[in-house]
């Protein structure tokens, strides 16, 4: 018996050693991938045409962009065989932090740089940052209510449901939004994100602007109230809504799958969370005041009343420096960003991640901002 216990202990020790060496090996791989020299031998000049660039581009940030980034990486790398693009989807906050600390060449972020961060970026880059919207995605209000496959909600009703004030599906407010429909008396379970999330920030921003009487909390990455059900990540919310009955949540529209998506009242119409309606809201939105021309930070116009516009969208940005140490690096960043905002790049993202392509006007503006990227820092 002692023998048994000894051999068991030996076994577990071997397993521990094995896992240790494995993790060390993984760590080393990760390090070497990150340390791959980013200097390159490219002689590419001024023009940002794709064929001449080479080197390694390191980015970090938003998880929302991850799926789109897969598509961008794949086609950019196949068009430029000497280029390696690494993107670490660590979350927007971490991505911005790494970028400001000079750890990565670009950051992906679901919220634009704050005024303080712009200052920090100027210090790190030695010049103003370039901030362009690259990923626009409608956030759908998803629900699972057997027997109901079409649902219309006004902003006030949405706010009251998520605040826990409307607790039953046959509440008069919901019936008023859906005239002539028979709704069951099932209890409503609102599902929100338990992790910090740009989706939550945009959703609460929408509620606080459009239904400020019913939703008295400011926009926040973290869900502000302690009621309702919570779930981790977009997939967690979708799973919770799917496995419950009478559940309602908010998630990236491309991830809604077979769940019902509510139409949201905008002005006097009800809008579906389509990519076209999401793109349309960009034209309605205003740039943040007091920014450089290369900084395209914008506040989404949540209170629009125009028909065919869906105001609950998430805008994710890519943030780069406007000057880089070497010409090769600057050209690489320029080429990659130009591809990302180009029509093929946006369509690839739409296909892979279900995002809404940015409008032509925005593209022109973004291209102008990207064109300022140069090798100036010595």
């Amino acid at each position: 018996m002692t023998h048994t216990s000894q051999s068991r202990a030996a076994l577990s020790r071997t397993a521990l050693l094995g896992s240790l060496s494995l993790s060390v090996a993984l760590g080393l791989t990760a390090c070497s991938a990150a340390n791959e020299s980013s200097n390159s031998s490219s002689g590419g000049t001024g023009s940002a045409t794709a064929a001449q660039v080479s080197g390694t581009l390191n980015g970090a940030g938003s998880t929302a962009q991850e799926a789109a980034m897969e598509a961008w990486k794949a086609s950019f790398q196949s068009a430029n065989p000497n280029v390696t693009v690494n993107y670490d989807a660590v979350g927007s906050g971490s991505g911005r932090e790494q970028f400001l600390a000079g750890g990565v060449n670009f950051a992906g972020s679901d919220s634009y740089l704050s005024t303080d961060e712009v200052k920090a970026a100027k210090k790190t880059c030695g010049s103003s940052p370039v901030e362009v919207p690259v990923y626009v995605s409608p956030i759908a209000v998803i629900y699972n209510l057997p027997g109901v496959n079409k649902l219309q909600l006004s902003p006030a009703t949405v706010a009251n449901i998520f605040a826990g004030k409307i607790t039953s599906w046959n509440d008069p407010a919901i019936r008023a939004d859906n005239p002539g429909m028979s709704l069951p008396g099932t209890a409503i379970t609102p599902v929100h994100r338990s992790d910090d999330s740009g989706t939550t920030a945009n959703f609460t921003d929408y509620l606080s602007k459009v239904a400020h009487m019913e939703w008295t909390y400011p926009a926040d990455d973290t869900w502000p109230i302690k009621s309702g059900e919570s779930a981790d990540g977009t997939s967690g919310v979708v799973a919770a809504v799917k496995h419950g009955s009478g559940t309602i949540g908010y998630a990236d529209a491309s991830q809604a799958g077979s769940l019902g998506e509510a139409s949201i009242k905008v002005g006097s119409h009800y809008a579906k969370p389509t990519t076209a309606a999401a793109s349309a809201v960009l034209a309605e939105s205003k740039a943040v005041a007091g920014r450089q021309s290369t900084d395209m930070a914008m506040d989404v116009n949540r209170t629009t009343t125009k028909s065919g516009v869906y105001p609950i969208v998430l805008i994710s940005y890519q943030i780069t420096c406007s000057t880089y140490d070497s010409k090769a690096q600057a050209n690489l960043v320029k080429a990659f960003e130009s591809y990302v905002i180009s029509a093929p790049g946006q369509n690839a993202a739409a296909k892979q991640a279900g995002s809404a392509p940015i409008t032509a006007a925005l593209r022109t503006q973004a291209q102008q901002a990207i064109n300022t990227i140069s090798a100036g820092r010595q």
Partner: protein
Amino acid sequence: MSSTVLREPRPPTRSRAGDQVFRGLAAGAAALILAALAGVVVFLTYQGAPAFTAPATAVPGASGFFGYLWPLVFGTLLVSGLALVMATPLSIGVALFISHYAPRRLASVLGYMIDLLAAIPSVVYGLWGISFLAPRLVPLYSWLDQHLGFLPFFAGPTSATGRTILTAAVVLAVMVLPIITALCRETFLQVPRLHEEAALALGATRWELVRVAVFPFARSGMVSAAMLGLGRALGETMAVVMVLSATGVVSVNLISSVNPSTIAANIALQFPEAAGLTVNVLIATGLVLFVITFAVNLVARSVVARRKDFSGAA
């Protein structure tokens, strides 16, 4: 320790150098573990320190660090405690069956299956919990709410998805089951044959044998097994993150959507987007979890140490 093994004097060999090297390597490995542990403590303390002194309004939730910490500690202890309450009797039963009831062949197969449970990654348990177990527990929770709703534990309103703290505790119980079972089985197998035969000779039935010979001998082993299981449950992250609908309240209601979070799950959820002082706060909660886990393990070890001849919980 100081017990020197006396051997026949051997002719001098070259293994002397090998001995020295091996001894050095072994000592180095031991020192490295201590250094790693010390490093973790230093890191947690250093990085967590700003959270303890930060003004209350700067901490997320604006109620100070301890206001932030308390629901998490409560949730951690509640879910781990529930898991332990469910897992310990079951584990002891399984271990007893393997060591004293089952035929030899069945026992080894069963032991192997239990060990296999320990090899399943926690993310798989999480998936199982969220998409299989939780929806199937909803009817049970409704029943509890209807019939035992007067108890604060089952006050409702019932969760529509079943992702409650009770479900999380069930998942955790399944996860700690293999550890507790394996350790209990080892202790039960170490009960001296003479004790058992003496009991049988006095006319004891199988149950009486277990009661008078096995349990008294194995008590410390069972306690330490449960404690080590508790240590595992306290730190479990992924499964809790996926299964539990955590909203940060302090509540003993076990069947509603509104539940306290746990320290480990909260760190996993909040860290990716955290910046500035929030990072310090999260690391400080990690320090608290470290202290709790350390205390639990210390208790387990001290129980084991009280019986020097016991070696099953190595």
